[in-house]
C-alpha cells in the first residue's frame, strides 16, 4: 500500500520544528508501524539524509518506550495498543498520516518524535515506592490481600509510563499516570506505611513538573494502551484529600531514636 507521511522533524530541544512530507510507495500491511518507519529511515540513510528519531525498546507493547501521535491520537487509531504493536493493516491505501511527538511542557522534545519523560521518573521518585526492611524476604503468601484489591492494584500497575495519558489530555495532565501508581501501592498492605506521604509528595511533584490538571474528560482512559481507568484518579483525590488533612511530615532528624 501507498502512504503519505507528515512527520515532525526537529533537530534538537532548542530548535524550531516543522512537518516534513514523505511518500511511502511500498508499505506492507503486515509491518508494524515502527517497522514502517525503519524502512523509511533505511531509505533516508541511503539518500544521506538524517533518519527520523523515535524511541523504542521491547517492541512487544510492554516497556512504555515508544509512543507518538498518529493523526492526533497517541499510539494511533487502534485502542489498547502501543505504537510498536500497531500494524499497517489498520490503515488504508493512499492514506495521509500526521505523525508528531507527545506535546507537554513536562515532555520537552529531544529530537523529532522523541521526548524527555524524565518528569515521570521524578514523580515516581517523589513517592512511588514502598520501603522494605532488609534481611530475610517475607513469604509471598504471608500477607493476606483481599482479592478485589489485588485485582485493582494489578490493573493500576499495568501502567507502562508511556505518557499517552498526558499526550491525549486537553490539559496535558499527568493525573492518570500519578493516580495509577498511588492506587497500585495504596491498595496493597505493603503500601500503607507511606500512603499519606506518597499522595502529598507525588501530587506536589506532578505540579512542580508543570503538568496540567484533570477536568475529567476521560480521554486518557480511552487512549491508555493498558486500559488504566480514571477511577484511579478519584482514588488519588481521596487519598490526597485525606492526607492534606491528617498528614504529618516527619520532624525529627533521620536516625534519631
Amino acid at each position, binding site marked *: 500500500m501507498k502512504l503519505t507521511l*507528515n512527520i*515532525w522533524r526537529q533537530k534538537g530541544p532548542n530548535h524550531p520544528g516543522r*512537518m516534513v512530507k514523505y511518500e511511502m510507495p511500498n508499505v506492507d500491511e503486515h509491518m508494524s508501524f515502527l517497522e514502517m518507519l525503519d524502512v523509511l529511515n533505511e531509505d533516508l540513510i541511503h539518500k544521506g539524509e538524517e533518519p527520523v528519531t523515535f524511541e523504542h525498546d521491547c517492541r512487544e507493547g510492554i516497556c512504555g518506550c515508544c509512543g507518538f*501521535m498518529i*493523526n*492526533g*491520537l497517541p499510539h494511533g487509531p487502534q485502542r489498547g495498543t502501543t505504537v510498536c504493536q500497531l500494524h499497517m493493516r489498520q490503515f488504508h491505501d493512499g492514506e495521509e498520516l*500526521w505523525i*508528531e511527538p507527545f*506535546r*507537554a*511542557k*513536562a515532555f520537552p522534545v529531544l529530537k523529532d518524535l522523541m521526548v524527555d519523560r524524565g518528569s515521570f521518573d*521524578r514523580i515516581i*521518585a*517523589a513517592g512511588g515506592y514502598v520501603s522494605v526492611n532488609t534481611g530475610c524476604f517475607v513469604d509471598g503468601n504471608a500477607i493476606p490481600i483481599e482479592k478485589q484489591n489485588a485485582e485493582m492494584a494489578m490493573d493500576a500497575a499495568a501502567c507502562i509510563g508511556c505518557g499517552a495519558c498526558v499526550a*491525549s489530555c*486537553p*490539559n*496535558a*495532565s499527568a*493525573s492518570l499516570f500519578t493516580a495509577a501508581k498511588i492506587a497500585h501501592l495504596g491498595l496493597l498492605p505493603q503500601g500503607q506505611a507511606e500512603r499519606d506521604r506518597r499522595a*502529598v*509528595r507525588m*501530587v*506536589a*511533584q*506532578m*505540579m*512542580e513538573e*508543570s*503538568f*496540567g*490538571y*484533570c*477536568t*475529567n*474528560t*476521560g*480521554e486518557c*482512559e*480511552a*487512549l491508555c494502551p493498558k486500559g488504566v481507568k*480514571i*477511577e484511579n*484518579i*478519584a*482514588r*488519588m*483525590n*481521596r487519598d*490526597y*484529600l485525606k492526607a*492534606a*488533612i491528617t*498528614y*504529618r*511530615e*516527619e*520532624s525529627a532528624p533521620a536516625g534519631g531514636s
Partner: protein
Amino acid sequence: MSTIAVGGINRTALFYQSVIGKKVIMAVTGFILSGFVLGHMIGNLQVFAGPEKFNAYAAFLQGLGPMLWVARIALLAAVGLHIAMAVQLTLLKLDARPQAYVKKSALVSTYAARTMIWSGPIVAAFLIYHLLHLTTGHAHPDFKPGDVYANFITGFKNPAVALFYMVANILLAFHLYHGVWSMFQSLGVSHPRYTPILKRLAQLYGIVIGLGNVAMPMAVLTGILTL
C-alpha cells in the same frame, strides 16, 4: 531532584496550591451553585401559575430579610471562588502545553466537557446581566419595583433579551451536563456501580435545567404568558 518540604508549610496553603485542592473547591462551589440553579428554576416556574402566585413567591423571598442576605453572600462567595479556580486552572493548562498539536483528535470527551471554559464565562457574563435586568432593574427599560410578573413579561417581550437568556441557559445546561458528574469525580466519588448513574443524573440535570429555563422566555415570546 526537588525537595518537597511539607512540615512548617501552612496546611491550608498546601491544599489550596495543589491542583486537586483547587478542583475540590471547584467541585464544592459547583455543587452549591448547581443546587441553587435547580431551586431557582423550580421557584420561577411558578410564573406559569399566574401573576398572583408569582408575585407572592417573590414577596416571600424578599420577606426572608437577613436570611436572604446570608444566602446571597454565600452564593456570591461560591461564584467568586468558582471563577477564581477556573482562572487559575486555565492558566496552568495554558502553561502545561505551550506548543499546540498540528493535529489533535478527541475520542470520548464530550463537547460539554471540552467547552467548560467557554460555557462558564458566558454564563458568568449572563449572570451579571440577569441581576441588573430582573433583580435590580438597571438594565430593564420598564422596571416596576415589586411587580415581578410584569417585569418578567415586559423584559422578555424584547426578542434580543429573550434570545440571550435562551442561549445562556443552553450553555448552562452544557456546563451542568459535564459539571454535575465531574464534581463527584473531583471529590473522589467513583465506583463502577454509581459512576454510570451519576453520569446519567448529570445529563438529566443539564437537560431539565436547560428545558425549564428556556421555557420561560419562550412562553413570553410565543404569547403563552401575557400581562
